[in-house]
């Protein structure tokens, strides 16, 4: 099953469960307070996921290492390499 199919299955499952509970015909209705909480649930979940995404990306952005030492070390290694290669007769 492709990732797309997995997503569609998951969404269909959750969607139909939600629809059955929230939009059921009058005779089978859940108590009013439950329905009132259920109706906007998909929107809440979407907003919550959006917040999670923003927070995660923001946190990872803020903690992305800059690797200053690695760059300094590389510069050192480069000049050592240049010197040694020249000594061995390489024409750059």
């Amino acid at each position: 099953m492709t990732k797309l199919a997995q997503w569609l299955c998951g969404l269909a499952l959750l969607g139909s469960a939600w629809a059955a509970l929230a939009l059921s015909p009058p005779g089978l209705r859940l108590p009013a307070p439950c329905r009132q909480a259920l109706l906007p649930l998909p929107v809440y979940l979407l907003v919550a996921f959006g917040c999670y995404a923003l927070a995660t990306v923001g946190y990872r952005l803020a903690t992305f290492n800059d690797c200053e030492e690695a760059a300094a070390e590389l510069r050192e290694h480069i000049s050592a390499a240049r010197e040694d290669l020249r000594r061995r007769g390489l024409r750059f």
Partner: protein
Amino acid sequence: MAAGGAGKVSVLLPTYEERHNLPLVVWLLVRTFQDSGIDFEIIIIDDGSPDGTQEVAEQLEKIYGSDKILLRPREKKLGLGTAYIHGMKYASGDFIVIMDADLSHHPKFIPEFIRKQKEGNFDIVSGTRYKGNGGVHGWDLKRKLISRGANFITQVLLRPGASDLTGSFRLYRKDVLQKLMEKCVSKGYVFQMEMIVRARQLGYTIGEVPISFVDRVYGESKLGGNEIVSFLKGLLTLFATT
């Protein structure tokens, strides 16, 4: 410190216009392998660079010997995937390391890759910029945001089980790379991503080692709108087909 029977490593270096970086990267590779006592060979696949990369490569072959430096050039620019297939034909190592020749990947991580591989007997060891001490140098905030954002979306959609999908500093078991090359069809960034996704499908194990990525010291590195669009297209293709 000898790595005792670690198995031979073949490094594939596809190059295009890297005459300034190639000698430096080869020097670093040779020093790293000699210091750690790992048997190695470096296969340089130059795609007919007009800047004389090949001439420099020939000088390196003379300095280090044709058993260590293998020149396997091609006529013209034919792309990364086919460069790996081409280079692999000549590789005699048990493991293959693929990396960029522009000095953004430091060879010092290769012994860590090998240690990691032994530790878990992994089929693939992937360098990751997104974990532990890993990171990047020389990226502005916008570039970092795009990178983190793209990585997040990829993780959500594909759940690949590896943190750095678009990185190209990895060690593969030779037969594993061969199998993967047969399956992968994408280009550019997406190619690296597809390799990991297919590897998971085929049940290969993946270990990760944090790496620092130092963006091109010489020459321009570019991330244009085109690349973002082709990345998204590739991501959605993988999402719908794997």
